[in-house]
């Protein structure tokens, strides 16, 4: 047992080292395009894990992610855009004090955005988390839209429909992967703790969980607020990644994009979300081919069909939910011992019986 654990730790450190090396190579030598996609993968990992925490581990079907992302994105934008630039951006109405003369370091802005989103999540959660499954979905979706409507209308705070540009592109590969890694470790620690078990109990059976002394509202709130925090951090990174944001960026379809990753990876699987984040992000880039001309198809329009990519993408979401309902991993995690068992089975050995012992 101890030996296996030691082996897992060593393998994990090795994997991490390889990852750092790969990132180093990509950061130094790959094309700008590749670097962009690499960063987007990390941001999507954070967003997917944040959604998986509520949906997959706690069983709350919240659809408010785009709203929380928006809060993080606008916080980062407003706190990091240089003062001089702010004056030129806010043409219609000047930005309110003290934001007009304030800039903060990127990391601080991310945290402030996260905390703000968590606070908003608290007030949204109070009415919403009492609701049953699909009512909660609609209510959180509604709040996400309300956040967007507020952003569109708060001209002197958000510059309204004109949006914000010149957001410093601080979120490089290291920022993105650093935070993604922190998120993975954090979620893994949370989920395997007593509180994490309580969340899973709520997902399995609310009535039984409550009868075992688990306060439903308090634990759902915990999950919901942490999720909002992480979504906002992901949103903040995303703002810095694209450089220009507006209310349109945070439409409901943003939430659906993340949902696709979570469903594909498996609701309730951390490793599933991480792998699906890579697959979906890179896959969406590959699918860009579909938007352009396809010379080998004679009936295809010469200049391509804009938007074809999204059609295929949404069709994939349907295929996954209809035919691979549990996604890549379902509730399960990909661990070193499960890989080991798989490999030895492939090699024809009988797998060592897995005992889900105590860490």
């Amino acid at each position, binding site marked *: 047992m101890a030996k296996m654990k030691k082996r897992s730790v060593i393998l994990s450190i090795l994997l991490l080292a390889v990852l750092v090396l790969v990132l180093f190579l990509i950061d130094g030598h790959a094309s700008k395009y590749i670097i962009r996609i690499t960063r987007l993968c990390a941001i999507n990992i954070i967003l997917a894990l944040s959604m998986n925490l509520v*949906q997959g581990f706690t*069983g709350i*079907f919240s659809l408010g992610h785009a709203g929380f992302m928006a809060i993080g994105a606008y916080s980062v934008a407003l706190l990091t855009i240089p003062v001089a630039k702010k004056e030129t951006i806010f043409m219609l109405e000047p930005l309110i004090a003290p934001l007009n003369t304030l800039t903060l370091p990127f990391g601080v802005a991310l945290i402030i955005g996260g905390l703000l989103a968590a606070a908003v999540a608290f007030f949204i959660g109070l*009415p*919403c988390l*009492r*609701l049953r*499954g*699909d*009512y909660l*979905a*609609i*209510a959180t*979706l*509604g*709040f996400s*839209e*309300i956040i967007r*409507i*507020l952003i*569109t*209308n708060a001209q002197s705070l958000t510059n309204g429909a004109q949006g914000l540009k010149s957001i410093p592109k601080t979120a490089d590969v290291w920022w993105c992967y650093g935070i993604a890694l922190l998120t993975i470790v954090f979620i893994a620690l949370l989920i395997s703790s007593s509180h994490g078990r309580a969340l899973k109990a709520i997902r399995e059976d609310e*009535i039984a969980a409550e009868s075992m002394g688990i306060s439903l509202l308090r634990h759902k709130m915990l999950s919901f607020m942490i999720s909002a925090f992480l979504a906002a951090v992901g949103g903040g990174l995303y703002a810095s990644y694209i450089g220009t944001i507006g209310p349109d960026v945070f439409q*409901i*379809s943003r939430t*659906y994009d993340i*949902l696709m990753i979570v*469903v594909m990876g498996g*609701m309730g699987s951390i490793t599933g979300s991480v792998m699906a984040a890579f697959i979906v992000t890179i896959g969406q880039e590959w699918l860009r081919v579909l938007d352009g001309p396809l010379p080998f198809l004679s009936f295809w329009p010469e200049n391509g*069909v*804009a*938007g*074809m990519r*999204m*059609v295929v*993408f*949404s*069709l994939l*979401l*349907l295929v996954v*939910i*209809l035919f691979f*309902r549990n996604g890549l991993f379902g509730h399960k995690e990909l661990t070193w011992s499960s890989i080991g068992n798989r490999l030895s089975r492939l090699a024809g050995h009988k797998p060592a019986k897995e005992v889900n012992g105590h860490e």
Partner: protein
Amino acid sequence: MFDLTRLLQTLTDALSLGSLYALIAIGYTMVYGVLRLINFAHGEIFMIAMYIVFYGVSMFAMPWYVTFLVTILVTALLGTAAERLAYRPLRSAPRISSLVSAIGVSYFLQNLATVIFGGRPLTFPQIELFTDVLVIGDVYIQRLSLIVPVVTAVLLLMLLFLIKRTRTGMAMRAVSRDYDAASLMGIDLNKTIAITFFIGSALAGVGAIMWGMKYTRISPTIGSMPGIKCFIAAVLGGIGNTAGAVLGGLLIGFIEIVTVALVPELSGYRDAFAFIVLIVVLLVKPTGLLGEKTTEKV
């Protein structure tokens, strides 16, 4: 400031918008009644109906009545097909799966519409018979504003007759009361559910035709906001209850139009009203105005 003319104007606006919401809300409430599913795709089916009218009248110059019939039929079939392909296979799966599937269908239809019809907004064909403006004293009323409530009322009466007085309606009521028991009693679940989708989607088609003529702008995303609002209307009226959906739709329509008329500064927040209503309803009376109370058996 608020004279009789404006009052009448506001009320007719509210009544026609409310009636349109009501027509779409019926589809949500019927589907939720039998499947306990929020049919996220309902708003997109409504959107596609508008494009069909656009192509029929503006592009192929078909007579409006032919186009309307074709539209309603195609819309109804589209809704039924969505059920057959994307919901039926998941009927025994966890509810979250069918919800994701419904989101998938909605997202797919929206993206497909963008590809086929283009992302840029188009102008809905104007059919003079409906869009003519009547002048009564100082009040200008589009003929449509009067037609919409009448059509809604007639369709509602027909639907209520169907639900209360026919075998099909009885089957629908049985399925929404107790799914398993209904199937044990020999009710053809698949057929009943298909009919439910057919009718609900057909009503969305009727709603779409009138919506298009009234608000004239169509785009692939036009369906999502009315869609969500009408689901809220259905919840407000008491989900599963047809008359409740109509009541809820009318109320949401009135709240939107009247609030903006009274406090014009709030017009930017108009789309948020429905959500606030939803939260209040769910907190105060989760079963809606006309809904029945249910308790989970432990």
